């Protein structure tokens, strides 16, 4: 119960990013795991038709998220940041929450059929959530970098969330 409350509190911190240390101080990897598994499950194609191979979707998303987070962490450490390995993993994992919400909304919107208006709505939602993710993670990670190198640490985060947003946007069930 205590862990669940901690996870819930961190979700709130991500949704309303303020300059607080709660995400960094007591890190945990439950939230990122739940979010990653949810995202990977929702990105599964229905492999009924044998022409399009929808099998590796789960493993692909999982590997992309975790290895991407590890790479960004190593990069920010090498650039001279004073953040620990797991703290950074925790922040990056929690900031996938807006993109998971975007995935849910996209799924609901896709129920109404596909078309150009449909695509525009999904594009708008995913773009907004992508910006939210990047801003949220920047708010937590940028403080740990030397002041003149913030852009160098933020760019890989931008790429990481861009790849995940792209996977969400181009998903068709």
């Amino acid at each position, binding site marked *: 119960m205590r862990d669940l409350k901690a996870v819930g509190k961190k979700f709130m911190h991500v949704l309303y990013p303020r300059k607080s240390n709660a995400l960094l101080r007591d890190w945990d990897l439950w939230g990122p795991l739940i979010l990653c598994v949810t995202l990977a499950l929702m990105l599964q194609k229905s492999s009924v038709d044998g022409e399009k*191979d929808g099998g590796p979707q789960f493993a*692909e998303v999982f590997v992309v998220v975790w290895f991407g987070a590890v790479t960004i962490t190593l990069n920010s450490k090498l*650039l001279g940041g004073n953040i620990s390995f797991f703290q950074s993993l925790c922040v990056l994992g929690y900031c996938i929450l807006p993109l998971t919400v975007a995935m849910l909304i996209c799924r609901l919107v896709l129920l109404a059929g596909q078309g150009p208006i449909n695509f525009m709505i999904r594009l708008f939602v995913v773009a907004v959530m992508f910006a939210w993710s990047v801003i949220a993670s920047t708010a937590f990670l940028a403080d740990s970098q030397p002041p003149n190198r913030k*852009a*160098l640490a933020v760019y*890989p985060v931008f*790429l990481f969330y*861009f790849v995940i947003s792209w996977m969400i946007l181009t998903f068709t069930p």
Partner: protein
Amino acid sequence: MATPAAPASGVRHGAGPEWGGFEENIQGGGSAVIDMENMDDTSGSSFEDMGELHQRLREEEVDADAAAAEEEDGEFLGMKGFKGQLSRQVADQMWQAGKRQASRAFSLYANIDILRPYFDVEPAQVRSRLLESMIPIKMVSFPQKVAGELYGPLMLVFTLVAILLHGMKTSDTIIREGTLMGTAIGTCFGYWLGVSSFIYFLAYLCNAQITMLQMLALLGYGLFGHCIVLFITYNIHLHALFYLFWLLVGGLSTLRMVAVLVSRTVGPTQRLLLCGTLAALHMLFLLYLHFAYHKVVEGILDTLEGPNLPPMQRVPRDIPAVPPAAGLPVSVVNATAKAIAVTLQSH
């Protein structure tokens, strides 16, 4: 009289328990030689003895006085005990040395701080290096400077991966064995690391003054041109535009790399070999990236425009069921045969 006698007897008593077993064996009979050998309990592996000794020392930490007393008693061990103690000391030293070496090696290789100096860059530096990678410098008389950093090249490779992914998804590429992500990452990293190593090897053969790190950085920054070209042409599907950009942008970044290498190589044959290989590989890679992951778009455009059935169909379409020719079971007839049958039927 009593005082000198007491220490003497004390010594004898001190030696008594140690030599007690020996005296008993002598009294026992003629098998004294064998028993003496059995008494030597340091004949096993000294390391095991070391481990045992350390274990015992740890347990005896509580009653340290008793341990000290026992060590004092054990000094008077005689010939056999002395040899055992020597081998124990040697084993102890070897163990300590081995432990020190192992921990040093571990801290050396598991330390990512080795890579730290290669990431020591400012955003302004990265920006200027990106722009410079498109500007070939004509001065080839003395070696041009190559920045040895890994941040820019690594970020460019990841950007190329992202752009490739975007292109593959747009053109609906179907990868049978493997995943889109795996293919993109494998292609880009394989090119960067593989071609860098190959050109470094050629540079070694041609006596060029370039280190592996510099080669990695040079090729990494050369991918900036690729990123630009692919980003534009994956969104605007015009062949003429692609060829123009291929020559212009790809050519510029290749010329820059070639100029750097020429300035660091002596001899016309070597220069030709090295720079020709690099130019060919770099330009061909861009061609490959555009066409391998983009062909399907062509197929879709063609089938949308013309009523004629193209010979190779990449887009699955509904082919109406046709009664097969006499003698052929239904399962043998494949898509092409069905399509031809439909065309023949429609005439």
